[in-house]
């Protein structure tokens, strides 16, 4: 679905990483590991096409979802408005009420993002994964700020996605909670 070869990037004059290759096939999950500042987020952004690598290239054969560590919510946006906006942008006719319910966002669905907790904002961002069927998910520290229940929901989403032939590349700091096909350590 995606393969990257010999990626390398500079930050200023410092080599953040080089010679990184990885690929992911349907049903697989690749976990990116590394200490803080090792470049996990940067690698994920290169895979998503947001950051241009100094060396190497990325071959993308599938569309992807992006869940960054910044959620992409506007302070005045409610979870419902956010999902509606992206459903329209992506031409999706998903049932937004059902998605809100599944992510435990029914109650705060009309609350502006600036009043939501960090966990609720993260759930709203993760709900985008259900708006549109996309084969590849790129997740940057997806468990951040989630409570135990939210974590279980996300794990179920990932398991479901992989079972139906999807793939995941995730930067994760602690315990992944799912069986990784491969780990890439920076």
């Amino acid at each position, binding site marked *: 679905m995606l393969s990257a070869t010999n990626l390398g990037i*500079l*930050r*200023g*004059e*410092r*080599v953040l990483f080089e010679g990184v290759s990885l690929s992911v096939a349907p049903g697989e999950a690749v976990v990116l590991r590394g200490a803080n500042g090792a470049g996990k987020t940067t690698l994920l952004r290169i895979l998503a096409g947001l950051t241009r690598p100094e060396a190497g290239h990325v071959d993308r054969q599938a569309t992807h979802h992006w869940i960054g560590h910044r959620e992409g919510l506007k302070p005045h946006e409610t979870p419902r408005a956010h999902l509606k906006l992206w459903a329209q942008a992506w031409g999706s006719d998903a049932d937004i009420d059902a998605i809100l319910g599944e992510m435990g966002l029914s109650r705060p669905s009309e609350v502006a993002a600036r009043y939501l907790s960090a966990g609720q904002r993260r759930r709203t961002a993760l709900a985008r994964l259900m708006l549109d069927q996309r084969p590849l998910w790129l997740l940057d520290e997806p468990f951040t700020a989630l409570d135990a229940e939210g974590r279980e929901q996300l794990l179920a989403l990932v398991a479901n996605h992989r079972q139906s032939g999807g793939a995941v590349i995730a930067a994760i700091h602690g315990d992944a909670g799912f069986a990784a096909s491969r780990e890439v350590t920076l």
Partner: protein
Amino acid sequence: MGMLSAFANPHRFLALSSWLAPLFYTVGGALIAWGVWQGLWVVPKDDYQGGDIMRVMFIHVPAAWLAMASYSAMAAASFIWFIWRHELADIAAKAIAPLGATWTALCLATGSIWGKPTWGTWWQWDDARMMSVLFLFFLFLGYMALRAAMDSRQKAARAGAILAMVGALNVPLIKFSVDMFTSLHQDASVITADGPKMAAVYLWPLMMSGLGHSLLFGALVMTLMRAEIWTRRAARQRARLLAGA
């Protein structure tokens, strides 16, 4: 082409500029000195151009030429960097900016000094050329401020290149719009359709002074580029040492 590719390679650039820059400093300095001597003591004053004050022309005109030429050079270097990502092109654009701004300011200052006795005012809002040069000065300042605000040299290069190209795209329009103001300034008189019509007695010192300023400018650009190349090498070395430690 051979010359250009020599400039595109940092090693060859360092080798070339190590003797070319001193040569430019020497010849440029001599020509400027000769032009100033001619301008101040030898050529007769021209009462139609304000009397003795017209002698400032031997600095003002070269400065005006360099103001325009340096912005064009900076935009060209930015374009080359944007398309081919030659690091040396970015180093050149970065080096040209403060020097271009300096000569642009020099052009404004000498224009103002020339303007006071001839127009009766330090600043003539109706003069299209002074206004154009002023906006060129702002374009240089914006370019330098933007580069300085970026947090890595790669980002500074990209942001600077985008802005320099946007600026270059707008310069003709800015010039055209400013020209719609009426002008009190004399028309361009060095080069016209039927060749230079300015008296030869002024023309030679002016041409030599212009060449001298251009050589000095080129030498300073080379010096700043050499400094930048060594700075980047030092930063790379430091990063390598830190990574090894």
